[in-house]
């Protein structure tokens, strides 16, 4: 992470480094602004398992109380569970204390509306205006509320999952499932959930104390321990969640990581085989989804990067989409809740295993094979903007161009997506091709091309 900007305020909330930018004072101000934005009422407050969670959460509670909100604490809780609970509890909104997959020195706030959805761009705009103006609706003591603590906040989420999934069929599979919660918020629900599905869980890093046993992003290089555990215990499958339990990566029965792109691919294949419907994914998600959708004759709708964009599109479509998500292991099943949910993802993959009677490695081989490479190049937003302008001219009739988010060009045997990062001063360069060699070759080509075009200015 680039420490020059240890504070990030964006559409996905606030993120900062504890001991540097993320002070109690700053956090309380955001909570006051959010409480002012929502109006006086119940606000759910949850957290992932980070060590700094208590410090940040207490500042949030103080800020909410001062503007006359009634905080309902749900403690350490997976993000999707907070989202479902917020909607069910008919609260005004929620604040989740989390920095998602960032390293442990980071923490932050995510803001949810009364539907249990992340604020969209317009809502974030309104809310940030209040923050920047600094005029919060502080109340007198006669309007103060008494905070509450909810003992069982994962229940509504768990109920929805169990009623959606074919529990009996999964249970008949008697699967042995290795699960790595990365000592994150998922640990409060994952063991119970897998047992309720009739699986035999093998737990790894399931103490929600925020001592991340590895980098909390479920990339292949971070999950060697899970792979070994799968082999040692002869498990049927391995799952790894990120720190706030919205994303999931899968390891097959041979102890090989599938790559995070495969989570949504397998889930989509299974869902479409049962109940075809449109699929909503972001621009960088694998081409494999298009191939599978074509098999079932359903449309694929692509959106800008960012969970909220996928969710907003899902909600705006006339025909209810069957599934949506992101290639980073974020599976969205509108029937459960329009949010990324690692538990839904686990459930769908187990259901797929049960329904097909096949091993994960076999399922993996049945889907179209692509290789994706994600690269990054240091560049400011401004430089990226100018670069894309130039490239657009050069490539205007050489491939199919999308300018929805940066620039994505689809060629006959590969695609490339070049866009500024939302969270860091870098360009993200993503290439997907049918073979690893081709993908590597084209990443090299586009790195040189970017360097070349950057020289022109």
């Amino acid at each position: 992470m680039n420490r020059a900007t240890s504070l990030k305020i964006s559409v996905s909330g606030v993120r900062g480094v504890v001991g540097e930018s993320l002070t109690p004072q700053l956090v309380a101000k955001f909570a006051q602004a959010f409480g002012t934005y929502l109006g006086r009422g119940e606000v759910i407050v949850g957290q992932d398992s980070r060590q700094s969670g208590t410090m940040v959460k207490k500042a949030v509670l103080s800020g909410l109380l001062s503007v006359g909100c009634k905080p309902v604490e749900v403690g350490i809780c997976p993000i999707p569970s907070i989202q479902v609970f917020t909607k069910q509890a008919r609260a005004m909104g929620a604040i989740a204390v989390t920095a998602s997959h960032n390293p442990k020195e980071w923490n932050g706030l995510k803001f949810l509306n009364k539907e249990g959805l992340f604020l969209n761009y317009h809502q974030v705009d309104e809310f940030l205006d209040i923050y920047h103006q600094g005029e919060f609706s502080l109340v007198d003591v006669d309007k103060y509320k008494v905070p509450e603590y909810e003992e069982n906040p994962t229940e509504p989420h768990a109920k929805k999952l169990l009623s959606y999934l074919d529990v009996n069929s999964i249970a008949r599979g008697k699967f042995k499932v290795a699960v790595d919660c990365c000592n994150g918020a998922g640990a409060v629900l994952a063991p119970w959930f897998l047992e309720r599905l009739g699986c035999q869980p093998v737990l790894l890093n399931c103490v929600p104390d925020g001592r991340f046993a590895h980098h909390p992003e479920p990339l292949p290089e971070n999950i060697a321990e899970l792979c070994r555990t799968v082999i040692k215990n002869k498990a049927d499958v391995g799952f790894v969640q990120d720190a706030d339990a919205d994303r999931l990566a899968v390891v097959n029965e041979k102890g090989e990581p599938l790559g995070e792109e495969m989570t949504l691919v397998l889930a989509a294949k299974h869902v479409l085989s049962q109940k075809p419907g449109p699929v909503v994914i972001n621009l960088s998600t694998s081409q494999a989804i298009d191939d599978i959708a074509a098999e079932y004759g359903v449309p694929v709708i692509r959106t800008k990067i960012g969970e909220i964009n996928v969710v907003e599109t899902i909600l705006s479509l006339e025909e209810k989409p069957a599934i949506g998500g992101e290639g980073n292991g974020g599976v969205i099943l509108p029937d459960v809740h329009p949010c990324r949910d690692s538990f839904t993802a686990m459930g769908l993959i187990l259901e797929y295993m049960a329904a097909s009677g096949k091993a994960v490695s076999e399922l993996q081989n049945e889907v179209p094979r692509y290789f994706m490479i994600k690269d990054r190049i240091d560049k400011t937003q401004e430089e990226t903007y100018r670069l894309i302008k130039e490239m657009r001219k050069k490539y205007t009739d050489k491939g199919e161009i999308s300018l929805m988010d940066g620039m994505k060009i689809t060629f006959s045997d590969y695609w490339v997506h070049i866009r500024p990062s939302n969270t860091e001063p870098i360009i993200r360069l993503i290439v997907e091709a049918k073979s690893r060699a081709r993908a590597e070759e084209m990443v090299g080509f586009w790195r040189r091309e970017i360097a070349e075009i950057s020289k022109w200015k």
Partner: protein
Amino acid sequence: MKLLKIGISGVRGIVGETIVPELVMDFASAFGTYLQIKKVLVGRDTRISGPMLHEAVLSSLISAGCDVLDLGICPTPIIQFMVRKLEAGGAISITAGHNDLKWNALTFINQEGTYLNVFQGEEVLDIYHLGKFDKAAVDSLGKLEKTENYLDNYFEYLKKYLNAEAIKKAKLKVIIDPCSGAGAGVIDVFSRYLDFELIPVNNEPNGYFPHDPEPRPRNAQEVASVMKVVKADAGFLLNSDVSRVSIVAENGEMLSEEFTFPLIANEYLKRKQGTVITNHSSSRMIEDVAKKRNCLLMKDKVGQSFSIQTALNEDAVIAGEGSGSVAVLEFQPAFDGFLTMGFILEIVASRRKKISELVEELPRYHIVKEKIYCPPTKVHSVVHEVKKLFIDRKMDSSDGIKVEDENGWVHIRASATEPMIRIIAEDRSRENARKRAEEVMNFISTLVK
């Protein structure tokens, strides 16, 4: 005009106006930065605004790298006791004592369990003004622990100090009104340890006060009304953090809070002679008591911070104020409502006398306490102007102005907590006491229009 009072040992203001998360956090961060031993106790009274301040204080102390022992709702004297017991670096008590519900405050307590003295308070203020607070990185953030069962520690110590045997034998019936403050519920534990029959009034810590949380006769109606009906031996009123007590006698007389300190001193100085500390606004009763017991009496400014600090410096044995505050130094250097109540019960039990009889042993004065609004920016100059009223008289100006003669006195000073000037007058006759106060009130009202 927004009300905010920054004193030596804390900060006090109106919730929603000046008492907002950011201010509370800045002060708590400054205190956490100031502490040498990074282990702090935190407790609060029952005010509805308490959780807002409490969460802000916990967040800031953790962020400053202090380990925090959270006592939850807890009377200030018990926090003070626990600081020494647990060898903590200090404590923050979140309470506005006798102020009404719209107020709240932070009180800073040092390693010795006393309010910060002038030097310590100034250092915290310097850090606050500088705004450079310690910010711990994630691995050195403070830990938060809940502390359970600490009431037993305190009440065992109290029971050992008092003549618990005598109190038990006397089978006393006692009414206590904690005003739904931090004493609510805790008085039940108190009664179990000292074996008396408790009749509680306003004993629910629900965040609201049934009357002004200032222990004085005009708030004592409820206690007084049941006193005779249940034939109780004593009645007590507490402020919201149990640092002050006023007494209702067995005959239903609602005693002025001025009696609390002299009643205890009159007995205590018999057992142990030594210097007595009070302030300039307290009744002459204590002077007479000290004289009778051949003890030296010294006066300091109003407020726990001054009285206790002076008591420690002068090696005094007892300190107290006319507001109903008493500290017996060998027990602990803190104004302590439980010790105060316990001591009165012990006197009643061991001397087999009724409270009304104990009161008879004290000289009777009449005290009048008034206050008059004055803009905070003018208070001190107005107090200074009042000197003109007493040009040919001997004046003591160590805390406001005090003018005395053989029959009584009048004391004029700026309030430490409100935009008010306080006028306190005392005389052998009620009428003269009133006259003394009215003379000053009339003069001030011509200055403050």
